[in-house]
């Protein structure tokens, strides 16, 4: 009798587990409500803080004011790292992705343009409308990094840096404006959030749950590729060639690895909280664990990289950890870009992957 009760309980649990399989609708809802919107709000809050800090610094230049602005900048870099891969909807409209962070800049175009603005004290770069009319490369985080941490940044502590500060203030205002716009667009009724959660055949962006799921999974798959190709491999030593740490984003601010960590965290969070890898059949129930295990490996590798990027690439152990991180991104990409779409019955990954 006792055995029969246990067997019945086991069957009941098995039934409950089966019934709890995550549905695409739940995945899409959780992605928007639990991940994308909160991270947009964090960027908005950080950007408003940065805007305020730059305004205060320009009003009363000081060493403390620079330190506060740098700290706020750090928060925004981290917050942006968590949404940089969310390349759908608002981030892709109005050139916001490039205006927020023009990267990579292989030819150093942005740097030259920023340096020219500072050298010529181009007043049109100090008001929002004038700045927005300029190259995307002088409007965002890369430009503000040079203002706060690049050659001549020491002038920000006194009146000699007035123009530099005013330009930085305009950039901070521009970043805050874009963050605010993106929050609004992710909350507007009938906007991308609704379309992504409840696709309709007559929507221009998401016609079915399948398409919406493809877009969601594609964000992580392409995000991992972007992390590796834009934010890791370009500055690491390869084929006997030396490391080039100055090709790393945010090296001047010493925030390269913070950005990378935020990027990894953001993608891991999207996978885990949306449950995208749990919306699979019984045969693939282990995939979610495998992906999360590999994201934890990425985090462990990042824990080992404690030095600023210039020193990290020169340190055998930390350089090896970076190399391992690249391997992990490849492994994750195979899981998220190939195994997961197959398990979900999607077609992310081959003919439609990208640009050919």
């Amino acid at each position: 009798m006792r055995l029969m009760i246990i067997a019945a309980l086991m069957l009941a649990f098995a039934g409950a587990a089966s019934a709890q399989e995550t549905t695409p609708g739940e995945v899409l809802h959780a992605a928007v409500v639990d991940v994308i919107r909160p991270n947009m709000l964090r960027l908005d809050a950080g950007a408003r803080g940065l805007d305020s800090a730059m305004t205060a610094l320009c009003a009363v230049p000081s060493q403390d004011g620079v330190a506060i602005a740098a700290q706020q900048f750090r928060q925004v870099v981290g917050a942006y790292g968590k949404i940089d891969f969310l390349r759908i909807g608002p981030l892709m409209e109005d050139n916001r992705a490039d205006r927020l962070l023009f990267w990579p800049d292989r030819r150093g175009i942005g740097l030259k343009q920023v340096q020219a603005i500072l050298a010529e004290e181009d007043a049109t770069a100090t008001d929002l409308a004038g700045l927005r009319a300029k190259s995307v490369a002088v409007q965002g985080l890369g430009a503000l990094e040079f203002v706060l941490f690049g050659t001549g940044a020491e002038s920000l502590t006194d009146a000699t840096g007035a123009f530099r500060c005013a330009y930085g203030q305009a950039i901070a205002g521009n970043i805050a404006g874009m963050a605010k716009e993106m929050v609004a667009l992710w909350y507007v009724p009938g906007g991308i959030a609704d379309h992504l959660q409840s696709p309709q055949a007559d929507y221009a962006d998401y016609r079915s749950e399948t398409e919406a799921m493809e877009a969601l999974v594609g964000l992580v798959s392409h995000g991992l590729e972007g992390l590796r190709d834009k934010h890791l491999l370009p500055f690491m030593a390869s084929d006997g060639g030396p490391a080039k740490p100055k090709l790393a984003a945010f090296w001047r601010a010493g925030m390269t690895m913070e950005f990378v960590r935020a990027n990894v965290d953001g993608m891991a969070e999207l996978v885990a909280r949306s449950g995208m890898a749990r919306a699979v059949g019984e045969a693939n129930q282990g995939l979610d664990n495998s992906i999360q295990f590999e994201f934890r490996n990425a985090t462990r590798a990042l824990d080992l990289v404690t030095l600023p990027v210039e020193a990290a690439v020169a340190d055998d152990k930390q350089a090896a950890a970076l190399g391992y991180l690249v391997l992990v991104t490849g492994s994750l990409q195979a899981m998220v870009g190939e195994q997961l779409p197959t398990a979900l019955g999607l077609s992310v990954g081959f003919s439609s992957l990208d640009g050919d």
Partner: protein
Amino acid sequence: MWQRRAFLQAAGAGFAASLLPRQALALERTELVFASAVQTASGGYGAVLLGEAGELIASIALPDRGHDITLSREAGRGVVFARQPGTFAVVFDPSGREAPVTLTSVAGRHFFGHGVFSPDGKLLYATESDFEAAQGVVGIYDAADGYRRIGEFPTYGTGPHEMLLMPDGVTLVVANGGIETHPDYGRTELNLETMDPSVVFIDRRDGGLVGQLRLDSGLHQLSIRHMAIDGRGRVWFGCQYRGAPSESPQLVGYASMEGEIRLIELPPGPLADLRNYVGSVAASADGATIAVSSPEGDLLVAIDVEGKRPVLAQTLRNGCGLAPDGAGFVASSGLGELIGMAGAARETKHFDFQFDNHLLRVG
């Protein structure tokens, strides 16, 4: 017949070839053969030849992902080009009598996945990237000398993609997609703000620029990628839009050596379903119909070249490859399907491999 041992010897370790003995003769018997790069069920890459009925005649393995295939009856060779930014191209003998030759791009260059033979089959031209200078080039290879690279000339733009030989046999037409990439950054697109796509006509005898055509400057983010030539010698092209996803510019147009370039007006429905992405373009055998595909939007569209309007829209999940077939077309998909469209009566076939973006009619 395909020579398995010769393939293996030529390709070396990690590069295998397979022959299906029961179907080996089919290649010589069949009148119509299609070729495509593929991804196998196990995740490897290769190229396949399919017979008239869609039967698999032969396959070869590739070291990495291939893209388009070109063929010359005169040379008796086909070439599979690596997908950009790949560095290999495999020259093969469709009859299988000769061993394939694997070409490697020279230092400072990579392939863009497309190429074409000269009419006499003596020269092979490939679109390539001079990636340090961010300029497109056409690499020239001598078929009589083991496909040695004997020179190059510019494509007069960045990010060249498909290249075709015009009916005059002298002029090459190249779609400069306008997008800068660099191997240090994988496939990252580096210049979306300053893209400058164009269609160029080049005299293949000296590399001289015959003409360069651009769409309106407001369309500078409309990357011109794939082309086919209609019965009147006009070059039809399909574009991929890199601007805001909420915008829906027209994606299909034509250019001529007389200097005309224009986009045609596709109705809002099919245009929206192309999802700002045309993956391939093909002309029907009589040159009266053009087909375009979008694997992003799961849509195939056939266009009457005289009326310049769509005559058929058909869905095919992840469909991209297109080749002429009788009065219509054959289409292939990234999910392993091969179907007929626009007048081609053909049973749908399913394969356990995934077709890459392009399908070539060999015979």
